[in-house]
């Protein structure tokens, strides 16, 4: 696997106009699967959430999950789409061990929603993204390739298949060709996926966790000679599974294709694989090798004809637009314009909202997401929402602080534990022994020792210089290894040294 020759980004943009197309797959958060009653809990023991239907046993038949249809319609409406008066599922036929029926039940030429648009803001500019279609399908199982060095099928000695994911409802959102973005193409691509994620989160239809695969993106890119020139040949880069990677992959493809074209070559129409580690794409299947999926209407399911009244009912459940939502939240939280801009800019609006919803004070919610967690996300090169710490847990950590069981410094250690997957905040506090010492006798003894060891500072406090207590507090906190309530320590010192 070697990197292709690349043209510099500036040179590429000087010669070519990029055209994008984005296909986003979203796993819905319905309680049950698309065509059976099996639960959809992430991370359950392999093959514990399966039945004859999602295992593709002979004789089993699908029954459509109405809530998944409702979610698909709401997504369509939120993207300003038309909703099909009647549409059908089709069978996409191909053989693969993690496909239980060896066909995927998916919408094909009759999507539930079509012809929509949405607007994405990048810096000061707004880009209108046209939506081609929103369609429903089922997820496949998951193959685990064992025995190789890379975890890929190549070199593996055998593979294990987990069918828990098979049949989980998926929505595919496909844009029309995105034109006119020029040099901003990679940033627009990232902004679109970010925007879509916020939208889906506000609809409450998906967990949209890219690192868990509940939101997956395929990025199409092509180059043409100018804004009026015909579209060039496109490539489809598969499994671009972080927001940062969306931007990087698009940028990489622009540079790579530009090099090919500048060299007098032609771009091959193919799927390409994105490599997160090396930041490059490599060829997958070409158009000639592309499978013939032999689509035909799924005879085991009746056509879907959403009632107009139902669609209107669903429309009424759509969340408010982004602008109104921000004003409302800003007022409710008492944030300044600057605070609010920081929150939105960090992509933390929904996270902060949910953290507050889970019981934290607005200032505390904002503080954790924009400082401690932002730093860690930055270190790992992921978005805030991609961290394995969620709003619920942040609120739980803050609750521990509010009840005086830990302090801010100990909270950082709790976040370490959460990021390492050590359990709930409560469990981490217990396992790591983080609880502050509230034993007055122990604290009193530590204070006495600090006064004895720092007679100079003690004298100053006695003389009325309360600020000098800092040195004593520091000494006590050091002895207690940070596990004390600094406010309480301060009170004890002042009480003991009061004139």
């Amino acid at each position, binding site marked *: 696997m070697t990197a292709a020759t690349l043209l510099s980004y500036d040179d590429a943009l000087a010669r070519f106009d990029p055209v994008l197309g984005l296909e986003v797959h979203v796993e819905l958060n319905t309680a049950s699967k698309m065509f059976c009653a099996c639960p959809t809990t992430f991370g359950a023991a392999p093959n514990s959430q399966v039945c*004859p239907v999602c*295992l*593709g*046993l*002979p*004789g*089993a*038949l*699908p*029954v*459509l999950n109405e809530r998944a249809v409702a979610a698909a319609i709401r997504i369509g409406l939120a993207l300003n789409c038309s909703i099909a008066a009647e549409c059908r599922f089709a*069978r996409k*036929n191909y*053989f693969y*061990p993690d496909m*239980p*029926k*060896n*066909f995927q039940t998916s919408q094909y030429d009759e999507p539930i929603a079509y012809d929509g648009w949405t607007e994405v803001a990048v810096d000061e500019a707004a880009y209108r993204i046209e939506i081609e279609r929103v369609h429903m399908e089922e997820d496949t199982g998951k193959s685990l390739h064992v025995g190789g060095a890379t975890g890929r099928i190549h070199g593996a000695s055998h*593979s294990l*298949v987990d069918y828990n994911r098979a049949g989980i409802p998926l929505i595919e959102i496909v844009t029309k060709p995105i034109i006119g973005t020029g040099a901003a193409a990679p940033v627009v691509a990232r902004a679109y996926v970010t925007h879509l994620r916020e939208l889906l989160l506000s609809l409450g239809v998906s967990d949209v966790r890219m690192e868990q695969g509940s939101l997956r993106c395929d990025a199409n890119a092509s180059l043409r000679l100018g804004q009026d020139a015909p579209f060039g040949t496109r490539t489809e880069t598969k499994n671009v599974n972080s927001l940062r990677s969306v931007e990087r992959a698009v940028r990489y493809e622009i540079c790579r294709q530009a090099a090919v074209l500048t060299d007098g070559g032609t771009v091959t129409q193919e799927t390409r694989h994105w490599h997160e580690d090396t930041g490059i794409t490599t060829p997958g299947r070409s158009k000639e090798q592309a499978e*013939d999926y*032999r*689509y*035909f209407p799924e*005879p*085991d*399911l*009746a056509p879907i004809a959403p009632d107009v009244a139902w669609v209107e009912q669903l429309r009424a459940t759509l969340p408010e637009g982004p602008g109104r939502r921000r004003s409302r939240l800003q007022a409710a939280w008492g944030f300044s314009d600057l605070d609010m801009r920081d929150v939105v800019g960090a992509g933390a609006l929904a996270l902060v909202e949910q953290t507050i919803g889970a019981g934290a004070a607005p200032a505390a919610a904002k503080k954790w997401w924009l400082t401690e967690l932002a730093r860690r996300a930055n270190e790992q090169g992921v978005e805030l929402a991609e961290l394995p710490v969620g709003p619920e847990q942040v609120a739980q950590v803050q609750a521990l602080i509010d009840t005086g069981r830990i302090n801010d410094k100990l909270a950082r250690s709790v976040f370490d534990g959460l990021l390492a997957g050590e359990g709930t905040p409560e469990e981490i506090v217990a396992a790591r022994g983080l609880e502050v010492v509230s034993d007055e006798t122990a604290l009193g003894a530590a204070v006495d020792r600090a006064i004895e060891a720092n007679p100079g500072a003690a004298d100053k406090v006695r003389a009325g210089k309360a600020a000098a207590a800092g040195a004593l507090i520091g000494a006590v906190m050091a002895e207690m290894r940070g596990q004390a309530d600094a406010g309480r320590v301060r009170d004890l010192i002042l009480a003991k040294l009061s004139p």
Partner: protein
Amino acid sequence: MDDTIRASAADLAAAMQAGEMSSVEITQAQLDRIAEVDGDLHAFLHVDADGALATAKRVDDARAAGEAVAALAGVPIAIKDVVVTRGLPTTCGSHILEGWIPPYDATIVTRLRQAGLPILGKTNMDELAMGSSTEHSAYGPSRNPWDLGRIPGGSGGGSAAAVASHQAPLAIGTDTGGSIRQPAAVTGTVGAKPTYGGVSRYGLIALASSLDQAGPVARTVLDAAMLHELLGGHDPLDSTSLDAPVPALVDAVRDADVAGLRVGVVRELGGEGYQRGVRARFDEVVGLLTDAGAEVTEVSCPHFDYALAAYYLILPSEASSNLAKFDAMRYGLRVPPDGVADPSAEQVMAATRAAGFGDEVKRRIILGTYALSSGYYDAYYGSAQKVRTLIQRDFAAAFDQADVLLSPTAPTTAFRFGEKLDDPVAMYLNDIATIPANLAGVPGISVPSGLADEDGLPTGVQVLAPARADDRVYRVGAVIEALLVERWGGTLLARAPSVTGTR
């Protein structure tokens, strides 16, 4: 024992209700009969004596305790091996499912179990329900009790042979293009294909999803109606199941009358290509119905001429997709490829499917894969669906003129083993009269119409009605049965040679 095994399901149910017989006695009599004669007939792929007797005992106990039981409680039944049965081997007549014990029951099996019908076993069939003779069964053919050198029809030849040879009073069949009705016709039994959606397909190993229907196989129209009522009705596990109550079929049989009924004889389903004796018996039935007060007219369904061609595009297309699940990954046969040290999943799939499927199955998978291919879809699958619409319109127009339609069930009597095995089209033609009903989703019944003079073998007459009017096929079927039994002075099966198991 002879009286017991020859009794109708309705009579057996009445005898149990009256306390004259127990289900254990009846079930044991059937098991003894199976042990005696099935070596000759090979109607069964699997017999579950213990399970059947246990159910029989439970029903007897319930009855003795004064509990309310279903009408057919305690009447033993045989089930075509296309139907998934929890804990009982289900092969669908194919090596591909050899050794598979399903972990769940088809909805119709659940209904049979809840109603307390002892399940005698699983009956033989053409592999994956593809065929008209059972000669395509991976486990060898079943034999026709009227002539052990001839086919019992197919694909449900096992169920028909079991009922015709008094190994079971009732059986389940499935009908995709005639697999209940054609075996009924050639064995002198009764078989009905319900309206599409009338009986749940959940747990039927799908051949062609838009055509498959399960239905009753019996010796009398009343027995078929009783079983059909038990099987039918909405099933939330089958999205194509009709959300409507089953029509009153038993009432239709008991009040059977054809006076003033408009009977349409389908011009395209008769004449050339139909055996002389089949035609003669059919004409007699038409005469009897006329005498009984029916208004018989001829109707034309011009697009029926294209039904067979459309069927052999739609069926293989759907089948090629339905059968893709047999891939050696999760259940059934697994065959490693020859001479490959470290085979990939794909190679194992290919080797297993090569070894596990018979020629007819492969032929249809290839046909269907081709018909659905990009560039051919419109010409083949697309055109076939258009023909299907035209056939549905033909039916609609015909049912404007007639309340029921009538035709011979099959163009010939039972043929000899091997006669059509090397000529698939000749084999397919045996379903020419039954296929249109599947393409349109309408109900049909086959009842015995007599014996062909030239070979002394059973012939059948088919009654078709509009979708959801299953009661009409039973009404007319019951009248035909009554008139013929009166004329013959007994049932047709009473004239069958006795099968002794000594062959």
